[in-house]
Protein backbone atom coordinates (compact mmCIF):
# COMPACT_ATOMS: atom_id res chain seq x y z
CA UNK A 1 0.00 0.00 0.00
CA UNK A 2 2.72 2.38 0.98
CA UNK A 3 4.41 1.78 -2.29
CA UNK A 4 1.36 2.78 -4.25
CA UNK A 5 1.39 6.10 -2.47
CA UNK A 6 5.11 6.56 -2.99
CA UNK A 7 4.70 5.74 -6.64
CA UNK A 8 1.95 8.28 -6.95
CA UNK A 9 4.22 10.77 -5.29
CA UNK A 10 7.14 9.99 -7.58
CA UNK A 11 4.92 10.21 -10.61
CA UNK A 12 3.60 13.58 -9.51
CA UNK A 13 7.10 14.85 -8.80
CA UNK A 14 8.33 13.70 -12.22
CA UNK A 15 5.58 15.75 -13.80
CA UNK A 16 6.50 18.78 -11.73
CA UNK A 17 10.25 18.65 -11.56
CA UNK A 18 10.74 20.59 -14.77
CA UNK A 19 9.01 23.68 -13.45
CA UNK A 20 10.59 23.55 -10.02
CA UNK A 21 14.06 24.59 -9.10
CA UNK A 22 14.26 22.35 -6.10
CA UNK A 23 12.01 19.97 -4.27
CA UNK A 24 12.14 19.24 -0.56
CA UNK A 25 11.00 15.79 0.42
CA UNK A 26 11.63 12.87 2.70
CA UNK A 27 14.23 10.18 2.21
CA UNK A 28 15.42 7.10 4.07
CA UNK A 29 17.66 7.52 7.06
CA UNK A 30 20.15 5.12 8.54
CA UNK A 31 18.88 5.94 11.97
CA UNK A 32 15.94 3.83 13.05
CA UNK A 33 12.52 5.52 13.27
CA UNK A 34 13.84 8.59 11.54
CA UNK A 35 13.84 9.99 8.05
CA UNK A 36 16.01 12.53 6.37
CA UNK A 37 14.91 15.69 4.66
CA UNK A 38 16.20 15.59 1.10
CA UNK A 39 16.57 18.31 -1.50
CA UNK A 40 16.28 17.08 -5.04
CA UNK A 41 16.80 18.83 -8.30
CA UNK A 42 16.99 16.16 -10.95
CA UNK A 43 14.81 13.35 -12.21
CA UNK A 44 17.40 10.79 -11.14
CA UNK A 45 17.00 11.80 -7.54
CA UNK A 46 13.25 11.25 -7.48
CA UNK A 47 13.71 7.63 -6.46
CA UNK A 48 15.14 8.77 -3.16
CA UNK A 49 11.77 10.11 -2.12
CA UNK A 50 9.74 8.19 0.40
CA UNK A 51 6.58 8.77 2.35
CA UNK A 52 5.44 6.78 5.35
CA UNK A 53 4.30 7.11 8.92
CA UNK A 54 7.76 8.11 10.04
CA UNK A 55 7.78 11.29 7.95
CA UNK A 56 7.25 13.42 10.98
CA UNK A 57 9.44 16.37 10.02
CA UNK A 58 7.63 19.50 8.94
CA UNK A 59 9.51 20.43 5.79
CA UNK A 60 7.89 23.85 5.72
CA UNK A 61 10.77 24.76 8.01
CA UNK A 62 12.99 25.13 5.00
CA UNK A 63 10.56 27.20 2.93
CA UNK A 64 11.37 30.69 4.17
CA UNK A 65 15.14 30.53 3.99
CA UNK A 66 15.22 28.49 0.82
CA UNK A 67 12.86 30.82 -0.98
CA UNK A 68 15.16 33.69 -0.15
CA UNK A 69 18.09 31.80 -1.68
CA UNK A 70 16.41 30.49 -4.80
CA UNK A 71 15.23 32.28 -7.87
CA UNK A 72 12.82 29.67 -9.13
CA UNK A 73 9.90 27.89 -7.63
CA UNK A 74 10.32 25.52 -4.71
CA UNK A 75 8.33 22.35 -4.36
CA UNK A 76 7.70 21.11 -0.86
CA UNK A 77 6.24 17.78 0.05
CA UNK A 78 3.97 18.31 2.99
CA UNK A 79 1.50 16.58 5.17
CA UNK A 80 -1.87 18.29 5.45
CA UNK A 81 -0.97 19.59 8.90
CA UNK A 82 2.36 20.95 7.65
CA UNK A 83 0.52 23.04 5.09
CA UNK A 84 -0.74 25.16 7.92
CA UNK A 85 2.74 26.51 8.41
CA UNK A 86 2.89 27.48 4.76
CA UNK A 87 -0.51 29.15 4.97
CA UNK A 88 0.61 31.04 8.01
CA UNK A 89 3.80 32.19 6.31
CA UNK A 90 1.88 33.32 3.25
CA UNK A 91 -0.75 35.09 5.31
CA UNK A 92 1.98 37.01 7.06
CA UNK A 93 3.55 37.88 3.71
CA UNK A 94 6.68 36.01 4.67
CA UNK A 95 6.36 33.72 1.69
CA UNK A 96 5.27 34.58 -1.78
CA UNK A 97 2.48 32.24 -2.73
CA UNK A 98 3.60 31.54 -6.24
CA UNK A 99 7.17 30.84 -5.26
CA UNK A 100 6.11 27.74 -3.42
CA UNK A 101 4.45 24.70 -4.83
CA UNK A 102 2.82 22.78 -2.05
CA UNK A 103 2.63 19.10 -2.82
CA UNK A 104 0.44 17.70 -0.13
CA UNK A 105 0.08 14.03 0.65
CA UNK A 106 -2.92 12.63 2.42
CA UNK A 107 -1.74 11.42 5.78
CA UNK A 108 -2.73 8.46 7.88
CA UNK A 109 -0.88 9.53 10.94
CA UNK A 110 2.72 9.93 11.94
CA UNK A 111 4.69 8.14 14.56
CA UNK A 112 5.90 10.01 17.59
CA UNK A 113 9.21 8.24 18.12
CA UNK A 114 9.57 9.69 21.57
CA UNK A 115 6.52 7.65 22.52
CA UNK A 116 8.22 4.53 21.24
CA UNK A 117 11.38 5.42 23.10
CA UNK A 118 9.35 5.60 26.23
CA UNK A 119 7.59 2.34 25.49
CA UNK A 120 10.96 0.59 25.31
CA UNK A 121 12.00 2.21 28.57
CA UNK A 122 14.31 4.55 26.75
CA UNK A 123 16.62 1.78 25.67
CA UNK A 124 18.47 2.67 22.56
CA UNK A 125 16.65 1.44 19.46
CA UNK A 126 18.97 0.03 16.86
CA UNK A 127 16.53 -0.92 14.15
CA UNK A 128 12.84 -0.69 13.31
CA UNK A 129 10.44 -2.02 10.74
CA UNK A 130 7.14 -0.50 9.80
CA UNK A 131 4.13 -2.10 8.19
CA UNK A 132 0.56 -1.02 7.74
CA UNK A 133 -0.64 -1.39 11.28
CA UNK A 134 2.36 -2.37 13.33
CA UNK A 135 5.86 -1.36 14.06
CA UNK A 136 8.65 -3.66 15.20
CA UNK A 137 11.53 -2.10 17.05
CA UNK A 138 14.70 -3.77 18.23
CA UNK A 139 16.91 -2.70 21.05
CA UNK A 140 20.30 -4.22 21.59
CA UNK A 141 18.84 -7.26 23.28
CA UNK A 142 15.08 -7.15 22.79
CA UNK A 143 12.45 -6.90 20.11
CA UNK A 144 9.15 -5.12 20.55
CA UNK A 145 6.04 -5.13 18.43
CA UNK A 146 3.66 -2.22 18.73
CA UNK A 147 0.35 -1.30 17.25
CA UNK A 148 0.76 1.91 15.30
CA UNK A 149 -2.44 3.42 16.53
CA UNK A 150 -1.03 3.87 20.02
CA UNK A 151 2.05 5.68 18.86
CA UNK A 152 0.83 8.44 16.66
CA UNK A 153 1.81 11.99 17.43
CA UNK A 154 -0.50 13.80 19.79
CA UNK A 155 -1.71 16.09 17.01
CA UNK A 156 -2.94 13.13 14.98
CA UNK A 157 -5.56 12.34 17.58
CA UNK A 158 -7.26 15.70 17.05
CA UNK A 159 -6.55 16.00 13.33
CA UNK A 160 -9.41 16.56 10.96
CA UNK A 161 -7.55 17.70 7.89
CA UNK A 162 -5.54 14.57 7.15
CA UNK A 163 -7.34 14.07 3.85
CA UNK A 164 -8.53 17.59 3.12
CA UNK A 165 -5.64 20.00 3.46
CA UNK A 166 -6.67 23.63 3.92
CA UNK A 167 -4.49 24.65 1.02
CA UNK A 168 -2.44 22.94 -1.64
CA UNK A 169 -1.18 23.22 -5.17
CA UNK A 170 -1.05 19.49 -5.69
CA UNK A 171 -2.83 16.95 -3.58
CA UNK A 172 -1.95 13.30 -3.57
CA UNK A 173 -4.66 11.27 -2.01
CA UNK A 174 -3.77 8.52 0.38
CA UNK A 175 -5.92 5.43 0.23
CA UNK A 176 -5.14 4.81 3.84
CA UNK A 177 -7.08 7.12 6.07
CA UNK A 178 -6.25 8.23 9.54
CA UNK A 179 -8.50 6.07 11.60
CA UNK A 180 -8.12 7.02 15.19
CA UNK A 181 -10.35 7.53 18.10
CA UNK A 182 -10.53 11.30 18.25
CA UNK A 183 -9.49 13.05 21.40
CA UNK A 184 -10.84 16.31 22.67
CA UNK A 185 -8.70 19.20 21.60
CA UNK A 186 -6.62 20.64 24.44
CA UNK A 187 -7.72 17.83 26.71
CA UNK A 188 -4.15 17.37 27.89
CA UNK A 189 -3.80 21.08 28.59
CA UNK A 190 -6.89 21.17 30.72
CA UNK A 191 -5.76 18.10 32.59
CA UNK A 192 -2.36 19.64 33.25
CA UNK A 193 -3.88 22.87 34.51
CA UNK A 194 -5.78 21.03 37.17
CA UNK A 195 -2.59 20.32 39.07
CA UNK A 196 -2.52 23.79 40.59
CA UNK A 197 -0.20 26.77 40.43
CA UNK A 198 2.51 25.51 42.70
CA UNK A 199 2.88 22.15 41.01
CA UNK A 200 2.82 23.80 37.63
CA UNK A 201 5.56 26.19 38.64
CA UNK A 202 7.65 23.32 39.93
CA UNK A 203 6.99 21.25 36.86
CA UNK A 204 8.38 23.87 34.53
CA UNK A 205 11.28 24.63 36.81
CA UNK A 206 12.30 20.98 36.61
CA UNK A 207 11.66 20.70 32.91
CA UNK A 208 13.79 23.71 32.14
CA UNK A 209 16.54 22.47 34.40
CA UNK A 210 17.34 20.22 31.47
CA UNK A 211 17.38 23.04 28.93
CA UNK A 212 20.81 23.64 27.45
CA UNK A 213 19.63 26.52 25.25
CA UNK A 214 20.67 24.79 22.07
CA UNK A 215 17.91 26.70 20.24
CA UNK A 216 16.91 23.64 18.24
CA UNK A 217 13.28 24.41 19.12
CA UNK A 218 13.62 27.87 17.68
CA UNK A 219 15.59 26.92 14.63
CA UNK A 220 13.36 24.05 13.57
CA UNK A 221 10.23 26.18 13.78
CA UNK A 222 8.91 27.03 10.32
CA UNK A 223 7.53 30.32 11.56
CA UNK A 224 10.49 31.60 13.50
CA UNK A 225 12.07 33.28 10.54
CA UNK A 226 13.77 35.61 12.97
CA UNK A 227 16.00 32.86 14.34
CA UNK A 228 19.26 34.48 13.29
CA UNK A 229 18.31 37.79 14.85
CA UNK A 230 16.86 36.39 18.03
CA UNK A 231 16.59 38.80 20.91
CA UNK A 232 17.42 36.04 23.37
CA UNK A 233 21.05 36.21 22.30
CA UNK A 234 21.26 39.96 22.20
CA UNK A 235 23.29 42.10 24.57
CA UNK A 236 21.49 45.32 23.81
CA UNK A 237 18.65 45.32 24.57
CA UNK A 238 19.41 42.77 27.19
CA UNK A 239 16.21 40.79 27.22
CA UNK A 240 17.81 37.89 28.98
CA UNK A 241 21.09 36.59 30.26
CA UNK A 242 23.20 34.18 28.26
CA UNK A 243 23.32 31.93 31.26
CA UNK A 244 22.23 28.38 30.75
CA UNK A 245 19.86 27.58 33.57
CA UNK A 246 16.25 26.85 34.29
CA UNK A 247 14.95 30.37 34.61
CA UNK A 248 16.68 31.63 31.47
CA UNK A 249 15.60 28.56 29.57
CA UNK A 250 12.06 29.23 30.60
CA UNK A 251 12.23 32.89 29.70
CA UNK A 252 13.57 31.98 26.30
CA UNK A 253 10.51 29.82 25.76
CA UNK A 254 8.29 32.69 26.87
CA UNK A 255 9.88 34.86 24.21
CA UNK A 256 9.17 32.16 21.66
CA UNK A 257 5.64 31.74 22.86
CA UNK A 258 4.75 35.36 22.51
CA UNK A 259 6.38 35.64 19.15
CA UNK A 260 4.32 32.68 18.07
CA UNK A 261 1.08 33.58 19.82
CA UNK A 262 -1.67 33.32 17.27
CA UNK A 263 0.79 32.01 14.71
CA UNK A 264 1.88 28.59 15.94
CA UNK A 265 0.31 25.81 13.94
CA UNK A 266 1.16 23.18 16.55
CA UNK A 267 3.25 21.08 14.22
CA UNK A 268 5.16 19.87 17.26
CA UNK A 269 8.60 20.15 15.73
CA UNK A 270 10.01 22.10 18.68
CA UNK A 271 9.08 19.39 21.09
CA UNK A 272 10.28 16.66 18.76
CA UNK A 273 13.75 18.13 18.35
CA UNK A 274 14.36 19.04 21.96
CA UNK A 275 17.39 17.04 23.08
CA UNK A 276 16.31 17.61 26.66
CA UNK A 277 12.84 16.18 26.01
CA UNK A 278 11.10 19.26 27.39
CA UNK A 279 7.36 19.36 26.80
CA UNK A 280 7.44 22.56 24.80
CA UNK A 281 4.32 21.98 22.78
CA UNK A 282 2.27 22.21 25.93
CA UNK A 283 3.11 25.89 26.23
CA UNK A 284 2.33 26.57 22.58
CA UNK A 285 -0.95 24.75 22.80
CA UNK A 286 -1.97 26.73 25.85
CA UNK A 287 -1.43 30.00 24.02
CA UNK A 288 -3.33 28.71 21.04
CA UNK A 289 -6.15 27.64 23.29
CA UNK A 290 -6.28 31.16 24.70
CA UNK A 291 -6.16 32.66 21.23
CA UNK A 292 -8.98 30.41 20.12
CA UNK A 293 -11.07 31.30 23.12
CA UNK A 294 -10.48 35.03 22.87
CA UNK A 295 -10.42 35.60 19.14
CA UNK A 296 -11.97 32.48 17.68
CA UNK A 297 -8.90 32.08 15.53
CA UNK A 298 -6.87 29.07 14.54
CA UNK A 299 -3.54 29.79 12.95
CA UNK A 300 -2.67 28.38 9.58
CA UNK A 301 -6.08 27.91 8.09
CA UNK A 302 -6.88 31.09 6.21
CA UNK A 303 -4.57 32.53 3.61
CA UNK A 304 -5.50 36.17 3.88
CA UNK A 305 -6.03 36.64 7.56
CA UNK A 306 -3.57 38.38 9.81
CA UNK A 307 -2.67 36.80 13.15
CA UNK A 308 -4.98 38.09 15.89
CA UNK A 309 -2.29 39.96 17.76
CA UNK A 310 -1.52 42.01 14.68
CA UNK A 311 -5.05 43.25 14.43
CA UNK A 312 -7.92 44.21 16.73
CA UNK A 313 -11.60 44.87 17.04
CA UNK A 314 -13.10 47.96 18.63
CA UNK A 315 -15.35 45.77 20.67
CA UNK A 316 -13.86 42.50 21.84
CA UNK A 317 -16.63 40.03 22.46
CA UNK A 318 -14.57 37.73 24.61
CA UNK A 319 -12.48 40.15 26.63
CA UNK A 320 -13.95 41.54 29.78
CA UNK A 321 -12.31 44.43 31.56
CA UNK A 322 -11.18 43.51 34.99
CA UNK A 323 -12.76 45.53 37.74
CA UNK A 324 -10.29 46.61 40.37
CA UNK A 325 -12.45 49.29 41.89
Amino acid sequence: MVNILENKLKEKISSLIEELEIIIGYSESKAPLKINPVFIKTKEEIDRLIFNNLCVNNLATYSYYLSADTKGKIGIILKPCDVKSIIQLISEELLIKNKIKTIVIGCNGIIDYKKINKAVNYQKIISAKLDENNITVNTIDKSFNFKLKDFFAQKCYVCNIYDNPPYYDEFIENDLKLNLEKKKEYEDIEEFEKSGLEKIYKFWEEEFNNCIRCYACRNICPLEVCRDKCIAQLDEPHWQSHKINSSEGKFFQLIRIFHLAGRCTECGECERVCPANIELLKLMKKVNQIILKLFDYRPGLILDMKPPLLTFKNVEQNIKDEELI
Partner: protein
Amino acid sequence: MNFINEGSKSLNVKNKKEDVKIVAFLCNWCSYAGADAAGTSRLRQPEDIRIIRVPCSGRINPLFILKAFNLGADGVLVSGCHPNDCHYSEGNFYARRRLEVIKEFLPFIGIDKRRFSYQWVSASEAQKWQKVVINFVKIIKEING
Protein backbone atom coordinates in the same frame (compact mmCIF):
# COMPACT_ATOMS: atom_id res chain seq x y z
CA MET B 1 21.49 18.75 36.45
CA ASN B 2 22.33 22.13 37.87
CA PHE B 3 24.45 20.56 40.58
CA ILE B 4 27.59 22.09 39.33
CA ASN B 5 26.34 25.59 38.54
CA GLU B 6 28.13 27.69 40.99
CA GLY B 7 26.84 30.99 39.77
CA SER B 8 26.27 33.88 42.08
CA LYS B 9 23.21 33.75 44.23
CA SER B 10 20.27 35.78 43.15
CA LEU B 11 20.91 39.45 43.57
CA ASN B 12 17.34 39.95 44.63
CA VAL B 13 16.91 39.95 48.35
CA LYS B 14 13.74 41.29 49.75
CA ASN B 15 13.88 43.52 52.74
CA LYS B 16 10.86 42.30 54.57
CA LYS B 17 8.16 39.87 53.82
CA GLU B 18 5.35 42.39 53.96
CA ASP B 19 7.00 44.63 51.40
CA VAL B 20 5.76 44.04 47.93
CA LYS B 21 7.22 45.27 44.71
CA ILE B 22 4.84 46.24 41.99
CA VAL B 23 5.73 47.79 38.69
CA ALA B 24 3.18 49.73 36.69
CA PHE B 25 3.40 50.64 33.02
CA LEU B 26 1.38 53.75 32.32
CA CYS B 27 0.63 55.39 29.03
CA ASN B 28 1.77 58.97 28.92
CA TRP B 29 -1.49 60.49 27.71
CA CYS B 30 -4.21 59.06 29.90
CA SER B 31 -3.08 56.97 32.83
CA TYR B 32 0.19 58.72 33.64
CA ALA B 33 -1.75 61.95 33.54
CA GLY B 34 -4.43 60.30 35.66
CA ALA B 35 -1.83 59.26 38.21
CA ASP B 36 -0.46 62.81 38.15
CA ALA B 37 -3.96 64.08 38.75
CA ALA B 38 -4.28 61.72 41.70
CA GLY B 39 -1.07 63.25 43.02
CA THR B 40 -2.32 66.75 42.44
CA SER B 41 -5.47 65.84 44.37
CA ARG B 42 -3.27 64.35 47.11
CA LEU B 43 -5.06 61.02 46.89
CA ARG B 44 -3.17 58.78 49.30
CA GLN B 45 -1.84 55.53 47.91
CA PRO B 46 0.36 52.69 49.16
CA GLU B 47 4.08 53.15 48.51
CA ASP B 48 4.62 49.85 46.74
CA ILE B 49 4.16 50.89 43.12
CA ARG B 50 6.90 52.06 40.76
CA ILE B 51 5.67 53.61 37.56
CA ILE B 52 7.36 53.27 34.19
CA ARG B 53 6.10 55.83 31.72
CA VAL B 54 5.53 54.65 28.16
CA PRO B 55 3.99 56.61 25.30
CA CYS B 56 1.12 54.23 24.78
CA SER B 57 -0.17 50.98 26.18
CA GLY B 58 0.50 49.62 22.70
CA ARG B 59 4.18 50.20 23.38
CA ILE B 60 4.14 47.52 26.04
CA ASN B 61 5.71 44.36 24.85
CA PRO B 62 3.97 41.47 26.62
CA LEU B 63 7.42 40.22 27.46
CA PHE B 64 7.95 43.20 29.76
CA ILE B 65 5.36 41.71 32.03
CA LEU B 66 7.00 38.30 32.03
CA LYS B 67 10.38 39.92 32.45
CA ALA B 68 9.12 41.83 35.45
CA PHE B 69 7.90 38.61 37.05
CA ASN B 70 11.18 36.96 36.17
CA LEU B 71 12.96 39.78 37.95
CA GLY B 72 10.94 39.15 41.05
CA ALA B 73 8.04 41.56 40.82
CA ASP B 74 5.11 40.62 43.00
CA GLY B 75 2.67 42.29 40.71
CA VAL B 76 2.51 44.05 37.39
CA LEU B 77 -0.04 46.67 36.55
CA VAL B 78 -0.67 48.18 33.14
CA SER B 79 -2.90 51.11 32.52
CA GLY B 80 -3.79 52.96 29.37
CA CYS B 81 -6.42 55.11 27.75
CA HIS B 82 -9.92 53.71 27.59
CA PRO B 83 -10.67 51.81 24.38
CA ASN B 84 -11.60 54.29 21.62
CA ASP B 85 -9.75 57.05 23.44
CA CYS B 86 -6.19 56.12 22.54
CA HIS B 87 -4.02 59.09 21.80
CA TYR B 88 -2.68 57.09 18.89
CA SER B 89 -6.19 55.89 18.05
CA GLU B 90 -5.42 52.16 17.97
CA GLY B 91 -2.57 51.38 20.35
CA ASN B 92 -4.67 50.25 23.28
CA PHE B 93 -6.74 47.95 21.07
CA TYR B 94 -3.63 45.98 20.27
CA ALA B 95 -2.53 46.20 23.88
CA ARG B 96 -5.83 44.83 25.08
CA ARG B 97 -5.45 41.70 22.98
CA ARG B 98 -1.86 41.10 23.94
CA LEU B 99 -2.32 41.79 27.62
CA GLU B 100 -5.37 39.59 27.83
CA VAL B 101 -3.42 36.73 26.30
CA ILE B 102 -0.67 37.24 28.88
CA LYS B 103 -3.15 37.35 31.69
CA GLU B 104 -4.75 34.12 30.61
CA PHE B 105 -1.38 32.51 30.13
CA LEU B 106 0.24 33.33 33.45
CA PRO B 107 -1.36 30.50 35.45
CA PHE B 108 0.07 28.04 32.96
CA ILE B 109 3.56 28.83 34.11
CA GLY B 110 2.50 28.85 37.71
CA ILE B 111 1.92 32.55 38.26
CA ASP B 112 -1.31 33.65 39.89
CA LYS B 113 -3.14 35.68 37.29
CA ARG B 114 -4.28 38.14 39.89
CA ARG B 115 -0.70 39.32 40.07
CA PHE B 116 -1.19 40.98 36.72
CA SER B 117 -3.85 43.46 35.86
CA TYR B 118 -4.49 45.91 33.09
CA GLN B 119 -6.81 48.83 33.53
CA TRP B 120 -8.14 51.77 31.58
CA VAL B 121 -7.68 55.02 33.46
CA SER B 122 -8.20 58.33 31.79
CA ALA B 123 -6.45 61.59 32.61
CA SER B 124 -9.46 62.72 34.58
CA GLU B 125 -9.91 59.55 36.58
CA ALA B 126 -7.63 60.36 39.48
CA GLN B 127 -9.89 58.61 41.92
CA LYS B 128 -10.15 55.56 39.79
CA TRP B 129 -6.37 55.38 39.71
CA GLN B 130 -6.20 55.65 43.44
CA LYS B 131 -8.70 52.85 43.86
CA VAL B 132 -6.91 50.69 41.34
CA VAL B 133 -3.64 51.12 43.18
CA ILE B 134 -5.10 50.50 46.61
CA ASN B 135 -7.00 47.42 45.53
CA PHE B 136 -4.20 45.98 43.47
CA VAL B 137 -1.70 46.33 46.28
CA LYS B 138 -4.22 44.75 48.63
CA ILE B 139 -4.69 41.79 46.33
CA ILE B 140 -0.96 41.27 45.93
CA LYS B 141 -0.44 41.40 49.66
CA GLU B 142 -3.19 38.87 50.11
CA ILE B 143 -1.58 36.51 47.65
CA ASN B 144 1.80 36.92 49.28
CA GLY B 145 0.14 36.02 52.55
